[in-house]
């Protein structure tokens, strides 16, 4: 919402609006993005994920340039994973950095492990992270076949999207059987659950799961989009305070 929108909505002067906005920014209640007439204000602590969620849920091939968030190949994803190292400058503890990178790495690499040659339309994954009010949000999405289609090939008894997601996060089974693998998401769940202020939610088709003390918050953000993802979308929340 822009100041002009507020002026119309609240019926107070632009000067009063700017005074209120400045005091809310000073109190870390809202955050400012952009400058000049394109200045936008957001509620502090909440992620801005409209772009990735629309990209993920679009029935047709998403239009437009996805920009730097899209990692078309695993190499690009791995290179951008290293950008997480900068988070220690914004408050992430050194001892948490190795875990954040490995958790994001497992989820992002899953996009390639399970969808190579089977993308719906756009190859690769969307990878972005945001820090707001001492909270790190990491979102990774792909337009692949989804967890259910991947696991159903190796275990036809899995009935639906929801069961497939629970299996993926809680049992050692991989869509890449007979290769001996399937530990990645268990690792992610362990790391999230063991920490006090961490959460993860994953939505794939009609299924959605969450883990960790902040998992419900991640679930709420993903579930707010009316359309399920074409592939899989995962949201991680890691408190740095």
């Amino acid at each position, binding site marked *: 919402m822009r100041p002009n929108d507020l002026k119309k909505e609240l019926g107070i002067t632009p000067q009063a609006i700017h005074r209120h906005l400045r005091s809310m920014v000073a109190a870390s209640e809202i955050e400012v993005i952009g400058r000049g007439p394109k200045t936008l204000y957001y509620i502090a602590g909440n992620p801005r994920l409209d772009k990735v969620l629309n990209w993920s849920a679009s029935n047709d091939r998403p239009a437009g340039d996805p920009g730097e968030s899209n990692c078309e190949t*695993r190499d690009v994803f*791995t290179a951008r*994973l*290293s950008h997480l*190292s900068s988070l220690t400058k914004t408050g992430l503890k050194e*001892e*948490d*950095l*190795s*875990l954040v*990178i*490995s958790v994001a*790495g*497992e989820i992002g*690499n899953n996009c*390639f*492990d399970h969808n190579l040659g089977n993308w719906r339309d756009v190859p690769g994954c969307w990878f972005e992270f945001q820090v707001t009010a001492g909270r790190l949000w990491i979102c990774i999405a792909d337009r692949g076949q989804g967890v259910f289609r991947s696991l159903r090939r190796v275990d036809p008894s899995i009935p639906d999207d929801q069961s497939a997601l629970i299996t993926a996060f809680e049992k050692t089974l991989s869509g890449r059987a007979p290769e*001996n*693998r399937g*530990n*990645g998401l*268990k*690792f992610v769940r*362990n*790391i999230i659950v063991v920490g006090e202020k961490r959460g993860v939610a994953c939505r794939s088709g009609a299924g959605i799961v969450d883990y960790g003390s902040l998992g419900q918050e991640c679930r709420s953000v993903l579930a707010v989009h009316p359309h399920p993802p074409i592939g899989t979308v995962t949201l991680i929340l890691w408190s740095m305070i």
Partner: protein
Amino acid sequence: MRIALKSYGTILTSRPAGREAALSMKAHIHPVPGEMIELDFDGVLSVGPSWLDEVLSSLRGDYGRERVICLPTKNFSVIESLRVIDA
């Protein structure tokens, strides 16, 4: 024989990268019979269980489980990865 894993990067993630690293290790190390192979994580920023599983499986397959060891480290990603792999 000690292998400095930082030679393979500071962020060690993905199975393909782990497989490639294991092949490279086996091409370059020539342990004498009975010699221990020690994986040294000093200087590594982060390790994923997928990468480490590929390396350990490959080395243990060739040299035996008891001869391949991970040196102690305070890196949590290594500790947690090993917890999942060896569960």
